């Protein structure tokens, strides 16, 4: 059963139609890579899923629940409950600069009081260990490299135990030699059966880790398929042209 079901999603900024008619279905534990030229609407789609953008039409269903149904949103408490099932990782990390690495992880769970302090502490240690940054627990974000920041951001998102992780170009702001450490963490999450939607320019990752690759241009999905098919034998002219440019 699909855990994410997007149907006919529409979004405009003023007169510009950014998402024309986007539909996407993601299965539990699936890793979907969304590729496409800048300005094609990839990020807007992802941001709509996290309610960082409000759609103008269409539906987004998470499990059984509708975040938006035919362009109509439920009450804000409901929206909050649905979006809490998703974590998001941003291109520019968006770590809280005034908090230590550990406090970045622990702030939200502590404020939302879903777990005891001891549980939160042990979870943050586990997750920092998992992303290889336990020794940086007391450091501030300003003292970390880009790759380290992004790994902290992933750990912070995991603190909320999301069922789905959304990645908005997670390696685009990194120096090339630092993308590997972030992709490694993402690869590990994929192996652990995390459901992931990854907007990316990292074709290597899409090829290697994604179960499915979707190509978006001008606010619509043009073509989708397995990585082998998409990279080996793309059908659509626009997909071919795009892949020729980036590969």
């Amino acid at each position, binding site marked *: 059963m699909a855990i994410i079901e997007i149907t006919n999603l529409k979004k405009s900024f003023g007169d510009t139609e950014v998402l024309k008619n986007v539909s996407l279905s993601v299965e539990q534990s699936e890793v979907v890579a969304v590729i496409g030229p800048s300005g094609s609407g990839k990020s807007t789609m992802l941001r709509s899923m996290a309610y960082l953008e409000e759609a103008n039409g269409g539906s987004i269903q998470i499990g059984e629940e509708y975040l938006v149904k035919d362009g109509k949103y439920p009450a804000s408490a409901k929206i909050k409950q649905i979006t809490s099932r998703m974590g998001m990782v*941003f291109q520019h990390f968006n770590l809280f600069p005034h908090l230590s690495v550990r406090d970045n992880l622990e702030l939200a769970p502590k404020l939302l009081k879903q777990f005891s302090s001891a549980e939160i502490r042990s979870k943050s240690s586990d997750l920092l260990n998992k992303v290889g940054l336990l020794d940086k627990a007391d450091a501030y974000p300003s003292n970390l490299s880009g790759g380290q920041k992004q790994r902290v951001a992933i750990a912070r998102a995991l603190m909320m135990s999301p069922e789905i992780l959304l990645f908005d170009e997670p390696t685009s702001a990194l120096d090339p030699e630092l993308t590997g450490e972030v992709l490694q963490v993402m690869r590990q999450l994929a192996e652990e059966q995390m459901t992931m939607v990854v907007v990316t320019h990292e074709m290597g990752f899409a090829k290697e880790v994604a179960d499915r690759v979707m190509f978006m241009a001008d606010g619509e999905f043009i073509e989708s398929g397995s990585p082998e098919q998409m990279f080996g034998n793309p059908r659509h002219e626009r997909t071919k042209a795009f892949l020729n440019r980036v590969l």
Partner: protein
Amino acid sequence: MSLDYLWQITGPMLEGAKTTVLLFFLAIITSIPLGFVFTLMVRSHVKPIAWFANGYIYVLRGTPLLLQMLFICFGLPVIPVIGEYLVMDRFAAAALAFTLNYAAYFAEIFRGGLLAIDKGQYEAAQVLGLGRWHTMTRIVLPQMFRIALPAVSNESITLVKDTALLYAVAVPELLHFAQTAVNRDFTIVPFIVAGVIYLFMTLLLTLLFKALERKFKFE
């Protein structure tokens, strides 16, 4: 000139400096929160509230503090009918003027601090499930104060020096006693002593804010 003389003139000046310091603390403690309230009002989605706050800031920043002080101290009491209810102790009137005036400056400083906070901070807070209150108190305000700190430091040093305006409404403070001694003894020394006392006060403030900036460096 003897040490005795220095001591003799410094005594009253330090006595006057108490008034200076009192006004400083009253003004800073009241104008910072009030300024932040105006910052929030300027950003309000309710247009009349934003207009009022913008108008307030424009008027209070656009006219001299001295005028505002005289307005409250000597202007309000001569308004027909209600004037008699608006008579205030001169020090209280001055303190009120300082608070209202500095609140306008702090409002602008804090607004600048808020503008400097990246949109991504709000988005990260939202996707982590933080509500508006927690986002404001735990994410936005700490960063805003850090960004505003150098400007707040600057403003509070200006405030120390502006307390000399009390002279104009004849509330005896540091400068008043210096002027009295200069007139009486026909010497420039009391002015120099007054300058040194002001420098000492601003030095303390400078050191305090430097320490705060170090403490909140987030490194």
